[in-house]
Structure formats: C-alpha cells, structure tokens
C-alpha cells in the first residue's frame, strides 16, 4: 500500500508545482522525474480564468503509461501591491481509463519574499480512492530583479488517508526567466525533480 501511496503522490505532484494558469495564450511544459514515475505535462491558457492540458506519466515499477487530460479553473484571485492570492479548482481524467481521475482545491498566497500554498485532493484509480492534503511554505533568501536567478527555500508537508502518515521534506526552487527547477528530498520518496518552462 505504501508504494501505491508514494506513486499516487508522485503522479499528481506536478499539479502543485507552480501556478497552473499562465498568461493568455501562454504555454507551460512541465517534466517530473522521481524514483517511481516520470511524467510530462503541458498546459495552455486560452483565458485568464482557466487552462487545459495533457499529462503523460510512466510508472517506473510497472512500466505502465497513463495519459490524462486536465482542467484548471481560477475560482478567485486577489492582487495587491505586494502580493497575489489564488484559489483554483483542478481536475484530471485518464484518457485510457476514466476510472483514473482526480479533482482538487488548491490555493496560494505569494509576495516577493514569502510563499504559501495548500492543496486538498481526491484521486481515484482502479481499486483505490485517496484523499490527500498538502501545505507548502517558503521564503526567498534574497529579492532578485526580473531576469535574475530567483531562489526559494521551502518546506512541504503531505498527508493522505491511505497510510495516514504525514511526510515533511525540504524543497529547493530555482527559477530564471521562463525556466524553473524544483527539487525535493524525503527518505521515503528520495529525490524528486520538477522542471518547468513557460513560453
């Protein structure tokens, strides 16, 4: 069951990587590589209120492949001079098996110095259902200007109802221009690397 839990976490983890809606007409390409699965996720933003995308995952254990379609809707956004706050609804469904699906509520609040996000997600596959909650907080050790290398030091904690165990781990996020890399490590899941490019 633990392996399944870890796999599920990895399968849907790229959804919480960064803002799931870009600027209008913007494309985002994400790649994730972890000990249990690799994935590629592309999404397009036709309207500032939603994005649509395709996700393709390869399970390293079973070598099975899971293509899926995703949709993200911006429920609410609040901009201030110093911050942005977002609330999203996300959903995804497997293209070769609609029993593989998920839906979630996610939110973030960010300034140039501080970051926080949460996610509550229900996912289902063949023979399982899982509810997972996660919280991520971060701080930028320095404030870079546009085009500089930006660094975030973060901590993420997750808990699901399958093994009812909370895992907490450090996350390092670096980004410059349209490119982002995020790395995390936990003794159970080992290294997990996300790459993202927005264009």
């Amino acid at each position, binding site marked *: 069951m633990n392996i399944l839990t870890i796999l599920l976490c990895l399968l849907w983890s790229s959804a919480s990587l960064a803002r799931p809606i870009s*600027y*209008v007409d913007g494309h985002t390409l994400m790649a994730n590589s972890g000990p249990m699965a690799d994935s590629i996720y592309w999404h397009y933003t036709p309207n500032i209120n939603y994005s649509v995308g395709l996700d393709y995952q390869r399970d390293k254990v079973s070598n099975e492949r899971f293509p899926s379609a995703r949709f993200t809707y911006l429920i609410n956004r609040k901009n201030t001079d110093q911050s*942005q706050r977002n609330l999203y609804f996300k959903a995804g469904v497997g293209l070769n098996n609609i029993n593989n699906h998920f839906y979630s509520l996610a939110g973030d609040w*960010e300034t140039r110095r501080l970051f926080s996000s949460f996610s509550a997600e229900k996912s289902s596959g063949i023979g399982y259902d899982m509810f997972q909650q996660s919280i991520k907080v971060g701080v930028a050790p320095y404030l*870079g200007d*546009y085009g500089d290398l930006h660094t975030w030091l973060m901590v993420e904690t997750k808990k699901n109802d399958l093994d009812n165990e909370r895992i907490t781990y450090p996350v390092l996020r670096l980004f410059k221009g349209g490119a982002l890399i995020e790395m995390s490590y936990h003794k159970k899941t080992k290294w997990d690397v996300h790459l993202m490019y927005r264009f």
Partner: protein
Amino acid sequence: MKNLFLLGLLVSSSVIYAEHHGQHGMENMHSHEGHLHNEMINGKTLKVDAQRFDKFMVDIDNHVVAVVSVQGMVCDFCARGIEKTFGKDKRVSKIDVDLASGKVLLAFSMAVDVDEADITQKILNNGLNTTDIQVVGK
C-alpha cells in the same frame, strides 16, 4: 485699451507658464534620492526609479512612455508574461518591468496613440491589475 492689453498679457503669460510647467514632458523631470518626481497635468505625482528610467530612455528618441502601476506582480513569471504580451504588440517599441516597484514602462512612438484601455486589458490577461497609467512625454 489698457485693460485689453493687461488681459492679453495675462492670457499669454498663462499659456507660456502652462507650456513650461504644466506639461509632463520628460525634459522637465528631475531626480533626487533615487526617484524621479514630476507633477503631472492631472495633479498626480509620477514616481519611478530615476536610474532605471534614464537607462530605459537611452536609445529611444521621439517616444512617449506609459508608466503602468501594476498590482500582483510578485514573480518573474508575471514579469515574463507582461514582456511577452507587450512584445507581440508592434506599437510598443521597448518594455521594462520593475518587480520591486510594480511598475511597467512601455515606450510608444510619438505617432502612436497610447490606448490605456488596451494596456489595462493586456495586464489583466496576465492575471494582474492596473491601478494607474501615466503617459510621459506628450
């Protein structure tokens, strides 16, 4: 006749004063303590980083600059989106995004009418809000 002469003098002096002080031409701008301050015709005070503004103006002559104040611009992705969006607009000659001050500078040729509603919509298409637009150099 004397009254007419005095009235004419008053009107012409007002016009000359307005031309020299009321317009928000870039040549009237002055910087101190790192910021550029200029009293605009509408009574608002323009504040932009002086060094940044000077650098922006280096290779553009005969242009007006829209100084756009933006809310929610907290990361490089926001800035990149703005640069890409306005980069597609052939009317915009040069773009500068200042994350620290939440200001976007857009240079337009003098021959172009600056469409503030279009600027506001493009900023909105990036998920951000425009709180103010000051057009400098008209």
